[in-house]
Protein backbone atom coordinates (compact mmCIF):
# COMPACT_ATOMS: atom_id res chain seq x y z
CA UNK A 1 0.00 0.00 0.00
CA UNK A 2 2.58 2.52 1.06
CA UNK A 3 4.75 1.86 -2.00
CA UNK A 4 2.61 4.08 -4.24
CA UNK A 5 1.24 1.71 -6.90
CA UNK A 6 1.12 2.76 -10.53
CA UNK A 7 -2.67 2.97 -10.61
CA UNK A 8 -4.29 4.04 -7.39
CA UNK A 9 -6.89 1.60 -6.09
CA UNK A 10 -10.20 2.34 -4.53
CA UNK A 11 -10.50 1.33 -0.92
CA UNK A 12 -14.05 1.55 0.36
CA UNK A 13 -12.95 2.18 3.96
CA UNK A 14 -10.31 4.80 3.31
CA UNK A 15 -12.49 6.59 0.75
CA UNK A 16 -15.45 6.58 3.10
CA UNK A 17 -13.30 8.02 5.86
CA UNK A 18 -12.17 10.85 3.61
CA UNK A 19 -15.69 11.70 2.49
CA UNK A 20 -16.97 11.44 6.07
CA UNK A 21 -14.32 14.02 6.88
CA UNK A 22 -15.66 16.21 4.10
CA UNK A 23 -19.18 15.92 5.49
CA UNK A 24 -18.04 16.81 8.99
CA UNK A 25 -16.03 19.74 7.70
CA UNK A 26 -19.02 21.10 5.78
CA UNK A 27 -21.09 20.79 8.92
CA UNK A 28 -18.49 22.49 11.10
CA UNK A 29 -18.43 25.40 8.66
CA UNK A 30 -22.18 25.90 8.74
CA UNK A 31 -23.26 25.46 12.36
CA UNK A 32 -26.57 27.08 11.38
CA UNK A 33 -27.53 23.88 9.54
CA UNK A 34 -27.00 21.81 12.67
CA UNK A 35 -28.92 24.31 14.77
CA UNK A 36 -31.83 24.44 12.34
CA UNK A 37 -32.03 20.65 12.25
CA UNK A 38 -32.27 20.52 16.04
CA UNK A 39 -34.63 23.49 16.21
CA UNK A 40 -37.43 21.67 14.42
CA UNK A 41 -37.96 18.91 17.02
CA UNK A 42 -37.39 21.38 19.87
CA UNK A 43 -40.13 23.65 18.52
CA UNK A 44 -42.46 20.67 18.14
CA UNK A 45 -41.64 19.53 21.67
CA UNK A 46 -42.48 22.95 23.09
CA UNK A 47 -45.62 23.49 21.03
CA UNK A 48 -47.16 20.03 21.13
CA UNK A 49 -46.39 18.86 24.64
CA UNK A 50 -47.89 22.01 26.18
CA UNK A 51 -51.41 21.05 25.14
CA UNK A 52 -51.13 17.30 24.63
CA UNK A 53 -50.09 16.70 28.26
CA UNK A 54 -53.51 17.45 29.72
CA UNK A 55 -55.34 15.41 27.06
CA UNK A 56 -53.09 12.36 26.94
CA UNK A 57 -52.30 12.17 30.65
CA UNK A 58 -55.22 13.78 32.46
CA UNK A 59 -54.27 14.29 36.08
CA UNK A 60 -50.59 13.94 35.33
CA UNK A 61 -48.25 16.89 35.39
CA UNK A 62 -46.67 18.57 32.39
CA UNK A 63 -43.27 17.21 33.45
CA UNK A 64 -44.67 13.67 33.37
CA UNK A 65 -45.69 14.02 29.76
CA UNK A 66 -42.37 15.59 28.80
CA UNK A 67 -40.63 12.68 30.50
CA UNK A 68 -42.77 10.38 28.39
CA UNK A 69 -42.57 12.13 25.03
CA UNK A 70 -39.02 13.51 24.73
CA UNK A 71 -37.70 10.32 23.05
CA UNK A 72 -40.35 10.75 20.36
CA UNK A 73 -39.30 14.31 19.57
CA UNK A 74 -35.65 13.23 19.41
CA UNK A 75 -36.62 10.39 17.07
CA UNK A 76 -38.73 12.76 14.96
CA UNK A 77 -35.79 15.14 14.69
CA UNK A 78 -33.64 12.34 13.30
CA UNK A 79 -36.41 11.04 11.09
CA UNK A 80 -36.94 14.36 9.35
CA UNK A 81 -33.21 15.11 9.25
CA UNK A 82 -32.77 12.13 6.92
CA UNK A 83 -34.60 14.27 4.38
CA UNK A 84 -31.73 16.76 4.44
CA UNK A 85 -29.27 13.90 4.05
CA UNK A 86 -31.15 12.85 0.93
CA UNK A 87 -31.31 16.42 -0.34
CA UNK A 88 -27.59 16.87 0.18
CA UNK A 89 -26.91 13.71 -1.85
CA UNK A 90 -29.22 15.07 -4.53
CA UNK A 91 -27.42 18.43 -4.47
CA UNK A 92 -24.04 16.73 -4.96
CA UNK A 93 -25.50 14.92 -7.94
CA UNK A 94 -26.89 18.09 -9.52
CA UNK A 95 -24.03 20.44 -8.70
CA UNK A 96 -21.34 18.32 -10.35
CA UNK A 97 -19.52 17.18 -7.24
CA UNK A 98 -20.34 13.57 -8.12
CA UNK A 99 -19.04 14.04 -11.65
CA UNK A 100 -15.81 15.33 -10.19
CA UNK A 101 -15.56 12.29 -7.89
CA UNK A 102 -16.20 10.00 -10.80
CA UNK A 103 -12.96 11.08 -12.43
CA UNK A 104 -11.19 9.57 -9.44
CA UNK A 105 -10.64 5.90 -8.65
CA UNK A 106 -13.15 5.97 -5.83
CA UNK A 107 -15.34 3.30 -4.28
CA UNK A 108 -19.00 3.97 -5.09
CA UNK A 109 -19.90 3.25 -1.48
CA UNK A 110 -17.77 6.08 -0.16
CA UNK A 111 -19.69 9.24 -1.16
CA UNK A 112 -22.97 7.87 0.16
CA UNK A 113 -21.64 6.18 3.29
CA UNK A 114 -19.44 9.19 4.03
CA UNK A 115 -22.43 11.50 3.93
CA UNK A 116 -24.54 9.24 6.12
CA UNK A 117 -21.82 8.68 8.71
CA UNK A 118 -21.09 12.40 8.90
CA UNK A 119 -24.80 13.07 9.37
CA UNK A 120 -24.81 10.62 12.28
CA UNK A 121 -22.75 13.22 14.11
CA UNK A 122 -25.43 15.79 13.33
CA UNK A 123 -28.05 13.34 14.63
CA UNK A 124 -26.13 12.99 17.87
CA UNK A 125 -26.23 16.76 18.27
CA UNK A 126 -29.97 16.74 17.57
CA UNK A 127 -30.70 14.09 20.21
CA UNK A 128 -28.48 15.91 22.70
CA UNK A 129 -30.17 19.26 22.16
CA UNK A 130 -33.73 17.89 22.26
CA UNK A 131 -32.92 15.88 25.38
CA UNK A 132 -31.24 18.89 26.99
CA UNK A 133 -34.32 21.05 26.45
CA UNK A 134 -36.45 18.15 27.64
CA UNK A 135 -34.44 17.89 30.87
CA UNK A 136 -35.16 21.54 31.57
CA UNK A 137 -38.86 20.70 31.29
CA UNK A 138 -38.93 17.48 33.28
CA UNK A 139 -37.22 14.68 31.37
CA UNK A 140 -35.04 12.51 33.64
CA UNK A 141 -32.45 9.76 33.26
CA UNK A 142 -32.98 7.22 36.02
CA UNK A 143 -31.07 4.23 34.73
CA UNK A 144 -27.37 4.93 35.12
CA UNK A 145 -24.60 5.88 32.76
CA UNK A 146 -24.91 2.80 30.57
CA UNK A 147 -28.58 3.58 30.10
CA UNK A 148 -27.71 7.10 28.98
CA UNK A 149 -25.20 5.82 26.44
CA UNK A 150 -27.67 3.28 25.09
CA UNK A 151 -30.36 6.00 24.96
CA UNK A 152 -28.18 7.92 22.51
CA UNK A 153 -27.05 4.92 20.48
CA UNK A 154 -30.54 3.61 19.67
CA UNK A 155 -31.77 6.59 17.61
CA UNK A 156 -28.42 6.89 15.82
CA UNK A 157 -28.65 3.26 14.74
CA UNK A 158 -32.15 3.86 13.41
CA UNK A 159 -31.13 7.10 11.72
CA UNK A 160 -28.31 5.32 9.92
CA UNK A 161 -30.66 2.71 8.46
CA UNK A 162 -33.38 5.18 7.52
CA UNK A 163 -30.85 7.45 5.81
CA UNK A 164 -30.03 4.67 3.33
CA UNK A 165 -33.69 4.44 2.38
CA UNK A 166 -33.85 8.19 1.86
CA UNK A 167 -30.62 8.26 -0.15
CA UNK A 168 -31.85 5.41 -2.34
CA UNK A 169 -35.02 7.39 -3.06
CA UNK A 170 -33.00 10.55 -3.73
CA UNK A 171 -30.90 8.72 -6.32
CA UNK A 172 -33.91 7.19 -8.06
CA UNK A 173 -36.36 10.09 -7.88
CA UNK A 174 -37.16 11.98 -11.04
CA UNK A 175 -38.20 15.15 -9.20
CA UNK A 176 -36.63 16.22 -5.93
CA UNK A 177 -39.67 18.29 -5.11
CA UNK A 178 -42.24 15.52 -5.44
CA UNK A 179 -39.95 13.10 -3.64
CA UNK A 180 -39.68 15.57 -0.77
CA UNK A 181 -43.42 16.09 -0.59
CA UNK A 182 -44.20 12.35 -0.66
CA UNK A 183 -41.49 11.40 1.85
CA UNK A 184 -42.49 14.23 4.15
CA UNK A 185 -46.02 12.81 4.29
CA UNK A 186 -44.70 9.29 4.87
CA UNK A 187 -42.46 10.43 7.72
CA UNK A 188 -45.33 12.32 9.33
CA UNK A 189 -47.45 9.18 9.26
CA UNK A 190 -44.62 7.14 10.77
CA UNK A 191 -44.08 9.69 13.53
CA UNK A 192 -47.74 9.93 14.52
CA UNK A 193 -48.83 6.30 14.16
CA UNK A 194 -46.37 5.20 16.81
CA UNK A 195 -46.30 4.80 20.56
CA UNK A 196 -44.59 8.20 20.75
CA UNK A 197 -47.45 10.57 21.59
CA UNK A 198 -49.88 8.16 23.25
CA UNK A 199 -49.84 4.62 24.57
CA UNK A 200 -50.60 1.78 22.20
CA UNK A 201 -54.00 1.13 23.78
CA UNK A 202 -55.07 4.73 23.10
CA UNK A 203 -54.61 4.35 19.35
CA UNK A 204 -57.62 3.19 17.31
CA UNK A 205 -57.76 -0.50 16.40
CA UNK A 206 -56.65 -0.04 12.80
CA UNK A 207 -53.57 1.93 13.85
CA UNK A 208 -52.32 -0.45 16.52
CA UNK A 209 -50.72 -3.04 14.20
CA UNK A 210 -49.01 -0.20 12.31
CA UNK A 211 -47.70 1.28 15.53
CA UNK A 212 -46.49 -2.10 16.77
CA UNK A 213 -44.43 -2.66 13.62
CA UNK A 214 -43.33 0.96 13.25
CA UNK A 215 -39.58 1.33 13.83
CA UNK A 216 -40.19 4.70 15.51
CA UNK A 217 -42.25 2.96 18.21
CA UNK A 218 -39.36 0.61 18.92
CA UNK A 219 -36.83 3.43 18.93
CA UNK A 220 -38.95 5.47 21.34
CA UNK A 221 -39.78 2.54 23.62
CA UNK A 222 -36.15 1.42 23.74
CA UNK A 223 -35.05 4.98 24.57
CA UNK A 224 -37.68 5.15 27.32
CA UNK A 225 -36.53 1.85 28.78
CA UNK A 226 -32.88 2.94 28.72
CA UNK A 227 -33.69 6.28 30.32
CA UNK A 228 -36.27 5.22 32.86
CA UNK A 229 -35.72 1.51 33.39
CA UNK A 230 -37.71 -1.44 32.13
CA UNK A 231 -36.89 -4.05 29.55
CA UNK A 232 -35.43 -2.69 26.34
CA UNK A 233 -34.31 -6.00 24.83
CA UNK A 234 -37.10 -6.65 22.34
CA UNK A 235 -37.22 -3.04 21.20
CA UNK A 236 -33.47 -2.87 20.79
CA UNK A 237 -33.56 -6.05 18.74
CA UNK A 238 -36.32 -4.64 16.54
CA UNK A 239 -34.40 -1.39 15.99
CA UNK A 240 -31.26 -3.32 15.13
CA UNK A 241 -33.21 -5.51 12.71
CA UNK A 242 -34.73 -2.45 11.03
CA UNK A 243 -31.35 -0.73 10.78
CA UNK A 244 -29.60 -3.77 9.34
CA UNK A 245 -32.48 -4.55 6.99
CA UNK A 246 -32.80 -1.00 5.67
CA UNK A 247 -29.04 -0.70 5.24
CA UNK A 248 -28.76 -4.03 3.43
CA UNK A 249 -31.67 -3.50 1.06
CA UNK A 250 -31.53 0.22 0.37
CA UNK A 251 -27.77 0.50 0.77
CA UNK A 252 -27.41 -2.04 -2.05
CA UNK A 253 -29.99 -0.28 -4.20
CA UNK A 254 -28.43 3.12 -3.59
CA UNK A 255 -24.83 2.08 -4.23
CA UNK A 256 -25.80 0.17 -7.37
CA UNK A 257 -27.67 3.12 -8.72
CA UNK A 258 -24.82 5.43 -7.83
CA UNK A 259 -22.25 3.21 -9.53
CA UNK A 260 -24.34 2.90 -12.67
CA UNK A 261 -24.87 6.60 -13.33
CA UNK A 262 -22.71 7.76 -16.15
Amino acid at each position, binding site marked *: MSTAPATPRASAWADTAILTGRGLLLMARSPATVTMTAAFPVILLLLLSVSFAEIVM*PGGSYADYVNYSVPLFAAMGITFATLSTANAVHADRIAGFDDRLRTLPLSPVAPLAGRIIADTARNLATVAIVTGVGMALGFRFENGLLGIVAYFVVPLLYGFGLAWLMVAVALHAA*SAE*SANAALNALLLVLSFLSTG*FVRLADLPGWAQPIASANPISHVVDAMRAFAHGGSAGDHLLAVAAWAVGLTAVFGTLAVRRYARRG
Partner: protein
Amino acid sequence: MTSTADTGRARASFATDALSLTGRHVRLMSRRPSSMISALVLPLVFAGLFLAVLGRPMERTGVDYVQYLVPAVVIQAMFFTAISASIWAAEDASGGMIDRLRSMPISRMSPVFGLLGGELTRAVASIAVLIGAGYLVGFRFEHGPLWAVVFALIALGWAAAGCLAYLVLGFAIAKVETVQVVGGLIYYPLLLVSNLFVPARAFPDWLRPIVENQPFSRIADALRAVSTDTTADPAGTTLLAVGWTLAVIALFAALAPRAFGRTP
Protein backbone atom coordinates in the same frame (compact mmCIF):
# COMPACT_ATOMS: atom_id res chain seq x y z
CA MET B 1 -60.79 46.09 -25.63
CA THR B 2 -62.98 45.03 -28.51
CA SER B 3 -62.04 42.43 -31.05
CA THR B 4 -61.18 45.02 -33.67
CA ALA B 5 -57.44 45.12 -33.28
CA ASP B 6 -56.78 48.84 -33.25
CA THR B 7 -53.28 50.17 -33.22
CA GLY B 8 -50.20 48.30 -32.07
CA ARG B 9 -50.46 49.65 -28.52
CA ALA B 10 -51.75 47.05 -26.11
CA ARG B 11 -53.63 48.34 -23.09
CA ALA B 12 -53.48 47.06 -19.56
CA SER B 13 -56.72 45.83 -18.13
CA PHE B 14 -56.57 44.82 -14.52
CA ALA B 15 -59.29 42.18 -14.70
CA THR B 16 -58.12 40.36 -17.82
CA ASP B 17 -54.47 40.54 -16.75
CA ALA B 18 -55.17 39.17 -13.31
CA LEU B 19 -57.42 36.51 -14.75
CA SER B 20 -54.90 35.28 -17.30
CA LEU B 21 -52.18 35.20 -14.63
CA THR B 22 -54.56 33.28 -12.37
CA GLY B 23 -54.96 30.79 -15.21
CA ARG B 24 -51.20 30.49 -15.54
CA HIS B 25 -50.82 29.88 -11.83
CA VAL B 26 -53.54 27.22 -11.67
CA ARG B 27 -52.00 25.40 -14.65
CA LEU B 28 -48.53 25.51 -13.10
CA MET B 29 -49.81 24.20 -9.76
CA SER B 30 -51.79 21.39 -11.34
CA ARG B 31 -48.63 20.23 -13.09
CA ARG B 32 -46.52 20.19 -9.96
CA PRO B 33 -47.21 17.03 -7.94
CA SER B 34 -45.83 18.48 -4.71
CA SER B 35 -48.34 21.30 -4.98
CA MET B 36 -51.22 18.89 -5.45
CA ILE B 37 -50.01 16.76 -2.54
CA SER B 38 -49.87 19.72 -0.17
CA ALA B 39 -53.26 21.00 -1.31
CA LEU B 40 -55.27 17.78 -1.35
CA VAL B 41 -53.41 14.98 0.40
CA LEU B 42 -51.46 16.56 3.25
CA PRO B 43 -54.50 18.08 5.02
CA LEU B 44 -56.19 14.67 4.88
CA VAL B 45 -53.06 13.03 6.26
CA PHE B 46 -53.00 15.49 9.15
CA ALA B 47 -56.68 14.95 9.82
CA GLY B 48 -56.17 11.18 9.93
CA LEU B 49 -53.11 11.46 12.16
CA PHE B 50 -54.65 13.78 14.72
CA LEU B 51 -57.77 11.66 14.74
CA ALA B 52 -55.69 8.54 15.35
CA VAL B 53 -53.50 10.01 18.07
CA LEU B 54 -55.93 12.21 19.99
CA GLY B 55 -59.28 10.59 19.07
CA ARG B 56 -59.59 8.26 22.03
CA PRO B 57 -58.08 10.55 24.66
CA MET B 58 -60.39 13.35 23.47
CA GLU B 59 -63.47 11.12 23.54
CA ARG B 60 -62.60 10.41 27.18
CA THR B 61 -62.84 14.11 27.94
CA GLY B 62 -66.25 14.20 26.25
CA VAL B 63 -65.34 15.82 22.92
CA ASP B 64 -66.59 14.41 19.60
CA TYR B 65 -63.23 14.73 17.94
CA VAL B 66 -64.32 14.34 14.32
CA GLN B 67 -66.67 17.29 14.69
CA TYR B 68 -63.96 19.20 16.50
CA LEU B 69 -61.22 18.39 14.01
CA VAL B 70 -62.70 19.23 10.60
CA PRO B 71 -62.68 23.03 11.08
CA ALA B 72 -59.10 22.73 12.36
CA VAL B 73 -57.79 20.91 9.32
CA VAL B 74 -59.66 23.29 7.04
CA ILE B 75 -57.76 26.16 8.68
CA GLN B 76 -54.54 24.20 8.38
CA ALA B 77 -55.19 23.66 4.68
CA MET B 78 -55.71 27.42 4.30
CA PHE B 79 -52.31 27.85 5.93
CA PHE B 80 -50.75 25.42 3.46
CA THR B 81 -52.32 27.53 0.72
CA ALA B 82 -50.67 30.64 2.14
CA ILE B 83 -47.31 28.89 2.38
CA SER B 84 -47.65 27.81 -1.22
CA ALA B 85 -48.36 31.43 -2.18
CA SER B 86 -45.19 32.61 -0.49
CA ILE B 87 -43.07 30.01 -2.26
CA TRP B 88 -44.48 30.84 -5.69
CA ALA B 89 -44.03 34.54 -5.00
CA ALA B 90 -40.40 33.98 -4.06
CA GLU B 91 -39.86 31.82 -7.15
CA ASP B 92 -41.42 34.37 -9.46
CA ALA B 93 -39.45 37.18 -7.87
CA SER B 94 -36.10 35.37 -7.94
CA GLY B 95 -36.64 33.48 -11.19
CA GLY B 96 -37.20 36.50 -13.42
CA MET B 97 -40.91 36.02 -14.05
CA ILE B 98 -41.76 39.31 -12.36
CA ASP B 99 -39.08 41.11 -14.39
CA ARG B 100 -40.51 39.65 -17.55
CA LEU B 101 -44.02 40.74 -16.62
CA ARG B 102 -42.83 44.24 -15.79
CA SER B 103 -41.53 44.62 -19.32
CA MET B 104 -45.05 44.13 -20.61
CA PRO B 105 -47.95 46.54 -20.67
CA ILE B 106 -49.94 44.91 -17.92
CA SER B 107 -51.66 46.23 -14.88
CA ARG B 108 -49.06 46.77 -12.17
CA MET B 109 -50.57 44.72 -9.38
CA SER B 110 -52.03 41.97 -11.55
CA PRO B 111 -49.18 39.49 -10.83
CA VAL B 112 -50.06 39.67 -7.13
CA PHE B 113 -53.72 39.09 -7.83
CA GLY B 114 -52.88 36.32 -10.29
CA LEU B 115 -51.08 34.41 -7.54
CA LEU B 116 -53.87 35.19 -5.09
CA GLY B 117 -56.54 34.02 -7.53
CA GLY B 118 -54.70 30.79 -8.26
CA GLU B 119 -54.17 30.04 -4.59
CA LEU B 120 -57.81 30.70 -3.75
CA THR B 121 -58.83 28.28 -6.49
CA ARG B 122 -56.62 25.75 -4.78
CA ALA B 123 -58.17 26.62 -1.42
CA VAL B 124 -61.65 25.87 -2.77
CA ALA B 125 -60.43 22.43 -3.84
CA SER B 126 -58.89 21.81 -0.40
CA ILE B 127 -62.09 22.81 1.41
CA ALA B 128 -64.23 20.60 -0.83
CA VAL B 129 -61.99 17.57 -0.32
CA LEU B 130 -61.81 18.04 3.45
CA ILE B 131 -65.55 18.54 3.94
CA GLY B 132 -66.26 15.56 1.67
CA ALA B 133 -63.86 13.38 3.64
CA GLY B 134 -65.26 14.75 6.90
CA TYR B 135 -68.76 13.70 5.90
CA LEU B 136 -67.52 10.14 5.40
CA VAL B 137 -66.34 9.93 9.01
CA GLY B 138 -69.20 11.74 10.72
CA PHE B 139 -68.73 15.48 10.29
CA ARG B 140 -72.10 17.27 9.89
CA PHE B 141 -73.31 20.81 9.38
CA GLU B 142 -75.85 21.20 12.18
CA HIS B 143 -77.13 24.64 11.16
CA GLY B 144 -78.25 23.96 7.61
CA PRO B 145 -76.92 24.80 4.15
CA LEU B 146 -76.87 28.58 4.54
CA TRP B 147 -74.41 28.39 7.40
CA ALA B 148 -72.44 25.80 5.45
CA VAL B 149 -71.91 28.47 2.79
CA VAL B 150 -70.84 30.89 5.52
CA PHE B 151 -68.39 28.22 6.70
CA ALA B 152 -66.77 28.07 3.28
CA LEU B 153 -66.71 31.87 2.99
CA ILE B 154 -65.03 32.32 6.39
CA ALA B 155 -62.43 29.74 5.43
CA LEU B 156 -61.84 31.35 2.03
CA GLY B 157 -61.65 34.82 3.56
CA TRP B 158 -59.03 33.59 5.99
CA ALA B 159 -57.18 31.93 3.11
CA ALA B 160 -57.18 35.25 1.27
CA ALA B 161 -55.84 37.03 4.35
CA GLY B 162 -53.19 34.38 4.88
CA CYS B 163 -52.18 34.34 1.21
CA LEU B 164 -51.87 38.10 1.14
CA ALA B 165 -49.66 38.05 4.25
CA TYR B 166 -47.50 35.26 2.86
CA LEU B 167 -47.33 36.89 -0.58
CA VAL B 168 -45.89 39.97 1.08
CA LEU B 169 -43.42 37.68 2.86
CA GLY B 170 -42.55 35.88 -0.38
CA PHE B 171 -41.98 39.06 -2.39
CA ALA B 172 -40.15 40.80 0.44
CA ILE B 173 -37.68 37.96 1.00
CA ALA B 174 -37.60 36.62 -2.56
CA LYS B 175 -35.49 33.57 -1.64
CA VAL B 176 -37.31 30.25 -1.62
CA GLU B 177 -35.38 28.52 1.19
CA THR B 178 -35.53 31.51 3.51
CA VAL B 179 -39.22 32.00 2.80
CA GLN B 180 -39.87 28.37 3.70
CA VAL B 181 -38.02 28.66 7.00
CA VAL B 182 -39.60 31.98 8.02
CA GLY B 183 -43.02 30.80 6.87
CA GLY B 184 -42.66 27.69 9.01
CA LEU B 185 -41.57 29.66 12.07
CA ILE B 186 -44.77 31.70 11.80
CA TYR B 187 -46.91 28.70 11.00
CA TYR B 188 -46.14 26.31 13.85
CA PRO B 189 -46.82 28.57 16.87
CA LEU B 190 -49.97 30.08 15.36
CA LEU B 191 -51.31 26.66 14.45
CA LEU B 192 -50.39 24.72 17.56
CA VAL B 193 -50.79 27.30 20.31
CA SER B 194 -54.46 27.66 19.47
CA ASN B 195 -57.70 25.82 20.10
CA LEU B 196 -57.50 24.20 16.66
CA PHE B 197 -56.51 20.68 17.63
CA VAL B 198 -56.90 20.80 21.39
CA PRO B 199 -59.41 22.84 23.43
CA ALA B 200 -58.06 25.92 25.19
CA ARG B 201 -58.70 24.40 28.62
CA ALA B 202 -55.92 21.84 27.98
CA PHE B 203 -53.34 24.63 27.96
CA PRO B 204 -51.71 25.90 31.16
CA ASP B 205 -53.42 28.89 32.77
CA TRP B 206 -50.80 31.45 31.83
CA LEU B 207 -51.07 30.54 28.16
CA ARG B 208 -54.85 30.34 27.94
CA PRO B 209 -55.60 34.04 27.27
CA ILE B 210 -53.27 33.95 24.26
CA VAL B 211 -54.71 30.67 23.03
CA GLU B 212 -58.28 31.90 23.28
CA ASN B 213 -57.76 35.29 21.72
CA GLN B 214 -55.33 34.70 18.90
CA PRO B 215 -56.90 35.02 15.45
CA PHE B 216 -56.61 31.37 14.45
CA SER B 217 -58.65 30.33 17.48
CA ARG B 218 -61.21 33.03 16.65
CA ILE B 219 -61.56 31.71 13.10
CA ALA B 220 -61.87 28.18 14.49
CA ASP B 221 -64.55 29.37 16.93
CA ALA B 222 -66.52 30.80 14.04
CA LEU B 223 -66.10 27.75 11.82
CA ARG B 224 -67.28 25.54 14.67
CA ALA B 225 -70.16 27.82 15.59
CA VAL B 226 -71.54 27.78 12.04
CA SER B 227 -71.05 24.05 11.54
CA THR B 228 -70.91 21.66 14.49
CA ASP B 229 -71.19 23.66 17.68
CA THR B 230 -74.84 24.12 18.61
CA THR B 231 -74.13 25.97 21.84
CA ALA B 232 -72.25 28.94 20.37
CA ASP B 233 -73.68 32.04 18.71
CA PRO B 234 -72.96 31.70 14.97
CA ALA B 235 -73.61 35.33 14.07
CA GLY B 236 -71.48 36.82 16.82
CA THR B 237 -68.46 34.56 16.29
CA THR B 238 -68.73 35.05 12.53
CA LEU B 239 -68.59 38.81 12.97
CA LEU B 240 -65.47 38.51 15.09
CA ALA B 241 -63.89 36.25 12.47
CA VAL B 242 -64.78 38.68 9.69
CA GLY B 243 -63.25 41.48 11.75
CA TRP B 244 -59.94 39.61 12.11
CA THR B 245 -59.96 38.68 8.44
CA LEU B 246 -60.55 42.25 7.30
CA ALA B 247 -57.91 43.56 9.68
CA VAL B 248 -55.26 41.17 8.36
CA ILE B 249 -56.25 41.89 4.76
CA ALA B 250 -56.12 45.65 5.33
CA LEU B 251 -52.70 45.44 6.97
CA PHE B 252 -51.09 43.34 4.27
CA ALA B 253 -52.89 45.01 1.39
CA ALA B 254 -51.18 48.17 2.57
CA LEU B 255 -47.80 46.43 2.65
CA ALA B 256 -48.21 44.46 -0.58
CA PRO B 257 -47.41 47.25 -3.07
CA ARG B 258 -44.23 48.08 -1.16
CA ALA B 259 -43.05 44.46 -1.01
CA PHE B 260 -44.02 43.76 -4.60
CA GLY B 261 -42.69 47.02 -5.97
CA ARG B 262 -39.30 46.43 -4.42
CA THR B 263 -38.68 42.89 -5.67
CA PRO B 264 -35.27 42.72 -7.32
